[in-house]
């Protein structure tokens, strides 16, 4: 794991926990900042480390929010899906997803939005442990997903992606 990845991981965790504890009431939902390393570095980290990292992140958030293993289960499933997605879309020559090669600003935003929505669906699924519950909470999922996407996109645009990458 690179130092940059560790730095992003810790920073995203701190931001999330800080937001949750101090300014959680500002918005209807707390944006899932901790998704950031999973969204950006999932290809650079091997499967085992990614799973362990996702599980650890989930447990830390669960400890602070008192949600049992909800975040751990959702993040772990999301990490597993990310790796499957990598396997299906990987370009072996450039070690990069075919979908994200030469992707512009809008395309990256769209891919990130889809990834975040997948996580939100998993999160609400584990919350109610039923698919019906997911449909019942579809409004919350969209709203929560949008908030997360909005903040993460600003964060990545400002600090993570270099202008040449976008």
């Amino acid at each position: 794991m690179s130092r940059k990845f560790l730095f992003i991981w810790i920073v995203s965790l701190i931001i999330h926990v800080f937001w949750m504890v101090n300014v959680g009431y500002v918005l209807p939902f707390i944006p899932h900042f901790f998704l950031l390393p999973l969204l950006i570095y999932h290809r650079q980290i091997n499967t085992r480390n990614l799973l362990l990292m996702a599980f650890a992140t989930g447990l830390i958030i669960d400890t602070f929010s008192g949600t049992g293993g909800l975040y751990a289960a959702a993040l772990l499933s999301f990490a597993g899906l990310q790796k499957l997605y990598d396997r299906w879309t990987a370009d072996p020559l450039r070690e990069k997803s075919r979908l994200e090669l030469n992707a512009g600003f809008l395309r990256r935003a769209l891919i990130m939005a889809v990834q975040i929505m997948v996580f939100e669906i998993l999160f609400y699924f584990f919350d109610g442990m039923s698919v019906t519950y997911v449909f019942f909470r579809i409004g919350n999922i969209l709203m929560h997903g949008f908030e997360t996407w909005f903040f993460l996109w600003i964060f990545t645009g400002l600090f993570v992606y270099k202008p040449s990458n976008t």
Partner: protein
Amino acid sequence: MLGIFRFLKRYGDFFLFLLLLSISLVLLAQNRARAGSVINRWTFNGMNLVTEKINLIGNYYYLNEQNRALQQENKKLYEQLYNRRPVLGIPKGFHFIPAEVVNKNYRSGFDFIIIDKGITDNIAPDDGVVSSQGVVGTVRALSNRFAKVITIYNPQFTLLVGLPQSEVTGFIQPDYRIFPLVRVTDVPFEAEVSPGDTLVTTGNSLIFAPGIPVGRVDSIRIDTQSRTKVLLLRPFTDFRRFRLAYVIHHNLRQALDSLNNEP
């Protein structure tokens, strides 16, 4: 051992995922009532399914033992049944010896089968062999522990069969060309036989006990030269599937044979 390591190395990530997910779900079930009730229900159903499958596997291994017990029980019942009927001129004393099929030789029909009973089990050449469905064949050769049985489809096999409660009889004469049927010849022209009738053993030569089902009449042809009927018989025994058999031995048969062979 190396294979296990390779397997773990290959699917290690997947097992790690399952392990971590299980831990998460356990935590979730302990801390959240709604999720807990659903997970407990899944676990309950899953455990029941697994227990059911394990029991099925256990029962499968227990089947052999049960089969042997049932075979012994059948032996007693057969002996009671076939020695109870008073048939004129046929002395009582048929013994049913349970046996298991070791090998089957299949060409156009089953020429012969090998069973796991031999001289040490007190069986003799030309003893009859039956399954729970009907006649299988007769013992042709013996070793101490095994016996070769020619089946009802073997050209060397011959047997007097008849309609139950009737004087109508005929000889079984196997023919490869009409497999899986066998031919029954020398049936009197005036005999009242129709397709669907069941033919049974007569017990005259003490090879088989009287009344053991052999097969069902499939069709009837008339032999105009000899003025007899020829029946095409479909044997009851399913030779592809049967595995357990009974050898029929009668103590007086060899004495009867020696008399019959006297010039």
